[in-house]
């Protein structure tokens, strides 16, 4: 282990290290990525040109400078990303003092550690393949340095490493399934700096939803356990907003406990299983209107499902929804007041228009229809890129001047019109639509399906969903965003691939991902318990017992196979076998062949020692040399002669 490092081993190590580190370049500060790359290249050049390694002082100063710079870049050191950055820079500095084979083993061990930090950023299939492939590379290098008397060829080390890893995979699976999982963080700093994900936010301003229109990120995947609803019913309820501040919408004061909401479901219950992508907020998306949520969830004032914890990991849950319902036929004065809130300024023309309708239309429902009629018949346009609106009276600007907007403009304007006309109303955001995946029989709802609509409270009916966008662009509701936009804009919308094959492949890939997310990544305490109960394994004690027995059993089988591989075996080559037989006969007569002796030397020595056997020894060794080393074709007759001679050789 104290041998100096062979150049080729070093180059392979540097290449392997580069592969291990590269994915961190996304999150490392740029200067650190450059530094690490330079150091990798520099260490290779040192080996090629026999440069001198820097002194302890230079190394120490540089290392301290780098750590200070890291601290300044991240602001603190106890976050995941800073930790990973520290690890990477540490390994890079380890290179500057790596001269012996022994130093490599530490670098390789740190490489394993760097590999696990990739999973903090992403646990997608691609990442897993990359990381587990890298494990084989790191292991191959570990084999190489465990054989310091001369580098093994990369072919051998890679093959051995693959064999080792392949044999470790069953153990990994056993432990993955059976190792008792405990819920929750141990020391609790996990997710405070989750990467910024696009998604619905807890306020709505013009532009906040249209910016999602171009994002093909998946928001949720839904499997309907019963019948699936019609496209026009596929509204996925997200956060609702009560308070308008003159520009945007906000949730408003949620301090008072949600009053016992009365829902009178009508029609069929629709049960769904939803895999929600993390979004850092507490809300749970579900088909409108979610009535029964998963354990640990409650409803807020707008009947939005709220989880007790922010959704920081993918979350799998079941919800029962009804598309036909009568919701809150009696409105409390408090909620009515909140649903009629308007700022005392701005949007003067909007108020006038509402007042005008109040005068002309006999009922609330007629006012709703008047508004929808206006959006439908007048020249309103549905676009992803609406013009900027005035700051003070944005909705006036939209309704009477620009008339180009995305769903949030229509929902916002409509809700304000209703409130101005004295009808309780609120804005609901969420998703609308979804793409069916045949491969896995589920719907994918993407961020580009984000939507906003209104709910108005009508006497006798309770809260009723009104989607003003449907009045402007009915295709949006029936066929999705791309269909509703002009052709130029539609081509920018993701998920609208025209080529069928690609579309199919995408569907299968998404399905694979969905299975990956649902059964592997989500495998935690609850899923483990549910899964193992099927096999009658109920508690930690039984898990540990079964785990121990199965791991020991597997290792016993493996040990048996290895034992069998190392058994005494006569070589397969019949020529070698006969020669071995001959040598062992002589060895029994105190004439063992020495390891350095070739057949000729051995025969010469043997004939000198036993002149009485000289003719036979010469004949057998001659035949062996001819069969083994001669250039002419293999002669079966000679082999027969050799066999015969060895059999009759009885000193």
């Amino acid at each position: 282990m104290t041998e100096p490092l062979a150049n080729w081993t070093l180059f392979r190590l540097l290449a392997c290290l580069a592969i291990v580190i590269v994915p961190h370049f996304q999150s490392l500060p740029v200067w650190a990525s450059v530094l690490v790359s330079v150091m990798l290249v520099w260490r290779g050049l040192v080996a090629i040109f026999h440069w001198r390694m820097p002194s302890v002082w230079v190394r120490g100063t540089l290392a301290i400078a780098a750590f200070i710079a890291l601290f300044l870049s991240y602001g603190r050191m106890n976050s995941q990303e800073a930790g990973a950055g520290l690890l990477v820079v540490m390994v890079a500095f380890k290179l500057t003092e790596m001269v012996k084979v022994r130093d490599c083993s530490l670098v390789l061990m740190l490489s394993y550690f760097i590999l696990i930090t990739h999973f903090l950023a992403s646990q997608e299939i691609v990442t897993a393949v990359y990381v587990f492939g890298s494990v084989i590379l790191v292991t191959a290098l570990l084999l190489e340095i465990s054989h310091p008397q001369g580098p093994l060829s990369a072919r051998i080390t890679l093959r051995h490493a693959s064999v080792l890893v392949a044999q470790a995979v069953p153990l990994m699976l056993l432990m993955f399934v059976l190792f008792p999982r405990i819920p929750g963080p141990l020391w609790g700093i996990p997710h405070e700096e989750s990467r910024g994900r696009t998604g619905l936010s807890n306020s709505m301003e013009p532009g906040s939803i249209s910016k999602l229109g171009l994002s093909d990120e998946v928001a949720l995947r839904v499997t309907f356990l019963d019948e699936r609803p019609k496209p026009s019913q596929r509204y996925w309820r997200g956060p609702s907003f009560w308070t308008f501040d003159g520009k945007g919408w906000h949730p408003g004061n949620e301090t008072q406990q949600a009053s016992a909401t009365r829902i009178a479901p009508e029609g069929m219950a629709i049960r769904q299983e939803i895999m929600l992508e993390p979004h850092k907020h507490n809300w749970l998306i579900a088909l409108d209107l979610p009535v029964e949520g998963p354990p640990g969830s409650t409803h807020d004032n707008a009947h939005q499902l709220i989880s007790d914890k922010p959704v920081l990991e993918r979350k799998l849950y079941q919800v029962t929804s009804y598309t036909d319902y009568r919701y809150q036929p009696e409105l409390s004065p408090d909620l009515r007041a909140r649903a009629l809130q308007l700022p005392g300024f701005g949007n003067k023309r909007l108020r006038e228009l509402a007042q005008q309708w109040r005068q002309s239309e006999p009922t609330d429902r007629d006012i709703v229809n008047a508004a929808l009629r206006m959006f439908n018949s007048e020249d309103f346009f549905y676009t992803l890129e609406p013009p900027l609106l005035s700051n003070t009276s944005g909705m006036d600007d939209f309704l009477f001047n620009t008339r180009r907007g995305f769903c949030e403009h229509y929902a916002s304007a409509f809700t304000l019109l209703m409130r101005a006309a004295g009808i309780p109303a609120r804005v609901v955001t969420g998703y609308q639509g979804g793409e069916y995946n045949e491969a896995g029989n589920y719907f994918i709802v993407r961020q580009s399906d984000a939507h906003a609509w209104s709910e108005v409270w009508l006497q006798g009916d309770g809260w009723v969903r009104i989607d003003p966008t449907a009045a402007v662009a009915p295709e949006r509701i029936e066929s999705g965003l791309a269909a509703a936009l002009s052709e130029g804009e539609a081509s920018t919308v993701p998920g609208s691939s025209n080529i069928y094959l690609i579309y199919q492949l995408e569907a299968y890939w998404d399905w694979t991902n969905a299975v990956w997310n649902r059964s592997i990544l989500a495998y935690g305490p609850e899923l483990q318990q549910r899964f193992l109960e099927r096999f009658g394994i109920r508690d930690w004690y039984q898990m540990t017992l079964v785990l121990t027995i199965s791991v020991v059993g597997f290792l016993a089988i493996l040990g048996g196979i290895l034992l069998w591989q190392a058994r005494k075996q006569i070589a397969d080559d019949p020529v070698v076998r006969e020669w071995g037989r001959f040598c062992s006969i002589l060895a029994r007569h105190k004439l063992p062949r020495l390891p350095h002796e070739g057949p000729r030397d051995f025969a010469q020595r043997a004939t000198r020692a036993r002149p009485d056997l000289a003719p036979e020894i010469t004949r057998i060794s001659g035949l062996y040399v001819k069969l083994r080393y001669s250039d002419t074709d293999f002669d079966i007759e000679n082999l027969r002669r050799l066999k015969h001679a060895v059999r009759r050789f009885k000193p």
Partner: protein
Amino acid sequence: MPTTPRQYLRRRIREYIFRRLKRVPGPVTIRRQRIYIVPSRFGYLFGLMVFLMLLGSMNYSNSMGFALTFLLTGLGLVAMHHTHRNLLNLSVRSGRHAPVFAGQNAEFQLVLDNPAATHRYAVAVSFAEAADDATLLDVPAHGSALSRLSIHAPARGLLSSPAFRVHTEYPMGLFHAWTWIELDMQCVVYPRPADNRQQPPPAPGGDSGKPDRIGGKEDFIGLRSYQRGDASRLIHWKTLPRTGQLMVKQFADPIQHELWLDWDSLPGLETETRLSQLCRWVLDAHRAGKSYGLVLPGLRLDPASSEQHRHSCLEALALFNLPKQTA
């Protein structure tokens, strides 16, 4: 000397192993029951790392983190079996052990035979408990490898090889597997040759008259410094200006006189000193290509001048009056 519990434990384990160890002529096949295996220092470090990974995966509820942690755990366990297998069924036999002089390092040759169809990588053989410098060898499938064990030979006689270790850390360096073997190997240790070259050559044991070194006339064999009484015609004048020293030409007779190296020609000296001196004479005589005989109390080797004869003489000196401790 105070011992730590660790050292104490090591000693006790070693004592236990050595009690079970038998000195055998070989070859010895390394059996399953005799292979000991413990994690190496790197192995403990690896274990610590895997444990930290497990804690991290628990803290972040990271499924792939768990998967990698468990893969590495499995890798460690699998590697343990491979390390064990790397020694299994290797056969060790003794090779040639060339004689050495006392004070030199004796070298025992060992042959490792691999009777199996699996290649064995990075196997080492060493005497010392912690031999970092042990040379590693590969033993190919159905092949053999030659290993050399070196040990200091302090005194003449027969040096028996102590027990040695065959060990390996391949493939991952996480585990250290070893076995102890004690082969009945002996190496002849000749006496240390005396270095006082001035000592006159031994008195003739027979009737051949004067030592033949000066008596020779035909073949020039070299120069030596002038001694009182040397004939002036033998002085080599050419070297005088260069060296400032009188040198005398030496001639050897092609017809060898018989030279007898006799124990009794060195009276009044200790046994070992006498043997050393005789050893020196044997070496000198052999180098000079002379025919010489050796006389020891109770032993007489007739004059000859072959490599074999040299060995016989030196061996006789090595084994002279040895207590029969190695029966």
